[in-house]
């Protein structure tokens, strides 16, 4: 149950001895985190409904271990999030997950951003007590956007839920049973996917990554710049990850004001054009009916000269400017000012109606 169905009645409960107020539809996890008490959770994610699958967010509620992500706050509840018993259960839960996870953090793209790695670190689990067989899958993945390494999948189900509940696509679901349970498209056939990458965004481990950024650098060595998506008019807030003067990855802050961290295939994966070899790198001037490289001085002077000549001969209204709905507002402002003042005509328009 997601929190938006929250009823508004206030309840008072105690978490680790601290008295807190909550609206009765809120989950214990939400209330605790808001209070500054961290409860780890691998399947819970604020953008999707809770499923209670990973069991890592167990807390003692009135003495009974329960998942805090699925239990709603109630009046007079006594919640303990950090008793030795709970920590023991939690530790073993992580141990079980790690027992079926490749121990290859040193080559995993997710290192440092991996929620499972973080918990292994916190609980100091180097070799799981409950070691045993691990699921081995051969990668068979034709899509050009998302790298799916199902051996790293911990079956938290976040990807399934975000694809279904947020994206409305439902491209993937659990298949098979028992230890062989696997997240895949129906019948492991075609992936009916929009490649929005919301699944990549919510994946807690390295199971889902963008193909574009694998091996392009560790996240802490990458410079992040907040900006606005250059595609449709929504103006999604994005963060460019820059390494070696290249965009290696694009993310969106989860709480971004416009798009709440959601992106589409273009906004998340469509930036290779920036570093395309086709980019124009020098001014060009037409000579003998062909375009030849020229210096800025040559090109600018020549252009100014031609505009002045034509203005002189045919009047300013024989010249027109077409600007772009993709350039910045500042560029557009300057452009129309140039046409209106330097040329002296109102023949200026842009492509918005096209």
């Amino acid at each position, binding site marked *: 149950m997601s929190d*938006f169905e929250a009823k508004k009645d206030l309840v008072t409960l105690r978490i680790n001895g601290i008295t807190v107020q909550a609206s009765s539809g809120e989950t214990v996890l939400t209330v605790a985190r808001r209070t500054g008490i961290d409860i780890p959770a691998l399947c819970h994610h604020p953008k999707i409904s809770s499923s209670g699958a990973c069991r890592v967010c167990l807390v003692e509620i009135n003495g009974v271990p329960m998942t805090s992500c699925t239990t709603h706050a109630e009046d007079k509840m006594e919640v303990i999030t950090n008793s030795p018993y709970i920590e023991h259960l939690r530790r073993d839960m992580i141990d079980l997950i790690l027992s079926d996870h490749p121990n290859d953090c040193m080559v995993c793209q997710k290192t440092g951003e991996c929620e499972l790695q973080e918990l292994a670190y916190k609980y100091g689990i180097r070799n799981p007590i409950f070691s045993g067989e691990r699921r081995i899958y051969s990668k068979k993945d034709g899509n*050009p956007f998302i790298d799916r390494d199902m051996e790293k999948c911990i079956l938290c189900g976040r990807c399934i839920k975000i694809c279904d*509940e*947020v994206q409305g696509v439902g491209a993937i679901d659990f298949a098979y049973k028992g230890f062989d349970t696997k997240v895949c498209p129906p019948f492991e056939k075609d992936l009916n996917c*929009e490649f929005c990458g919301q699944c990549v965004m919510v994946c807690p481990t390295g199971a889902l990554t963008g193909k574009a950024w694998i091996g392009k650098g560790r996240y802490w060595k990458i410079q992040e*710049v907040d900006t*606005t998506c250059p595609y*449709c*008019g*929504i*103006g999604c807030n994005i963060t460019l990850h820059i390494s070696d*003067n*290249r*965009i290696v990855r694009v993310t969106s802050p989860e709480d971004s*004001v416009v*798009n709440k961290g*959601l992106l*589409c*295939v273009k906004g998340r*994966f*469509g930036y*290779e054009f920036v570093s*395309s070899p086709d*980019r*124009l*790198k020098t*001014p060009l*001037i*037409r000579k003998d009916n062909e*375009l030849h490289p020229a210096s*800025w001085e040559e090109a600018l*002077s020549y252009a100014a000269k*031609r505009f002045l000549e034509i203005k002189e001969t*045919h009047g*300013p*209204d*024989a010249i*027109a400017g*077409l*600007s*772009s*709905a*993709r350039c*910045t*507002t*500042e*560029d557009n402002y*300057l452009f*129309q000012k*140039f046409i209106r*003042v330097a040329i002296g005509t*109102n*023949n*200026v*328009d*842009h*492509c*918005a*109606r*096209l």
Partner: protein
Amino acid sequence: MASLATIFGSGAMTNSIREIEDNEVIFIIGSNTKESHPVIANMMLKARAKGAKIIVADPRKISMCKFSYLWLRQKPGTDRALLNCMAHVILEEGLYDQAFIDEFTTDFDEWNKSLEEFTPEAGEKLTGVPKEDIIKAAITYASSRKAAIYYTMGITQHTHGTANVNAIANIALLTGNIGRRSTGINPLRGQNNVQGACDAGCLPNVFPGYQRIRIPKIHKKFENAWAAALSPNPGLTAPEITEKAAEGIIKAVYVMGENPVLGDPNMGHTIKGFKNLDFLLVQDIFLTETARLADVVLPAVCFAEKDGTFTNTERRVQRVRKALLPPGEAKEDSWIIAELSRRMGYEMNYSSSEEIFDELGSLWPALEGITYAKIQQRGIQWPCPTKNHPGTEYLYKSGFPRGKAAFTPVPFDRDTVKEDKEYPFVLSTGRNLFHYHYGSMTRRVKAIESHAGKAYLEMHPDDAAKLKITSDASVKISSRNGSVIVPVRVTERVRQGEVFMPMHYAEAAVNILTDEKALDYSKTPGYKITQVRVEALIGEEK
């Protein structure tokens, strides 16, 4: 957009994106939201999860139909008839907002009279939508106080685009579904900074901030501000510029970041116009089809290589930041313009994009309260007139800027699509999920190209059967202006007799087919309806 501004005084989305999730009724007409504005669709699905009903009106079975409470499959070009009929039902059912009509609108009676003939029965005949569905849609929309309309080019890119927008405005005014949170009229902008380009004054009849050139006081204001004598006459629109170029009246054109050869209707006509110029200057990041015709090409930087702002579809001014060094000798557009200007005898001295933005703000009250410092973390929605103003989430909270809004009768002359034996199919054009516009950016992304790199024509299975073709077989599609060869994708997304072609693929350029003469009052071309012929290819043509 022009028409929306005529009615209300502003042509922008009246609500905010974040208000979508609280909509109770979402009426999508002429917008393939899931593909063209995917993240808006996400917000709509969130509303749906909270109980909102989605009504889709579209001739094509677009992805949004899957989530719709009701899907109205109107015949192409009959949107305004459908909207008129809905208005008829709303009046009939008494679901209008009399108090709102009295206080905020004019010309109701005349308009009301114009609706007489638009009964649901007539609507069914005109639009092909069953009358029960028209009634259901009208009642659903009018029964909610949180009903919002969303549209894009499916409404505007028609020879009757203005009439379509008027018809939309009419039902919003009739129900009073405008001027409050989560209810209003929302044109979704197709490009990142359409709003900003308009705001900045890249329009022939207005100065920055939609201030009319014709009004002497305003003309004077800008002459003073820019310390220059300015032309008092409104200029030419983009289609007119091409037209006049072909006629030899326009002699030189300066194109910044745009590719009219591919983007304007009737490519043959456009090329002719541009070739006819004495001088063509193109400033872009790629050597586009238009740049290839230029006398001088100037390398500009892309969004990631400069500072500035984009204003999104909900009027939110947001920062764009320089993250990369530009390739080669590429320069920022503002630097190029200033250098050119200087050489033409008009100095432009700006040390940063922020200075330019502040100048714009000083000339238009709606932006006056916005500064780079204020939008450091998150953007602000204009109007934002003062430094302490938080911005405006939704428009017309306390009435329309021009006073009352007028109801506009929208006649339906039934001749958008003419019977044509020679060109029996109706072609509409638009986007798919994976590409953007005419492809100069997305087609240079290998991942996207490898997944969606081929042009196609959507065609109904029955039509395909008649032509004895199957998916992936190439066809020749021709209009009076030209023809292209494109592989077919057989699908029930389109109806019999209708075909759809995405606009992104230069190798099968839709604008070889479209017609430049199909212009609306707003000078928007009718990209959504072109009458074409489709022929299977035989023998060597394949």
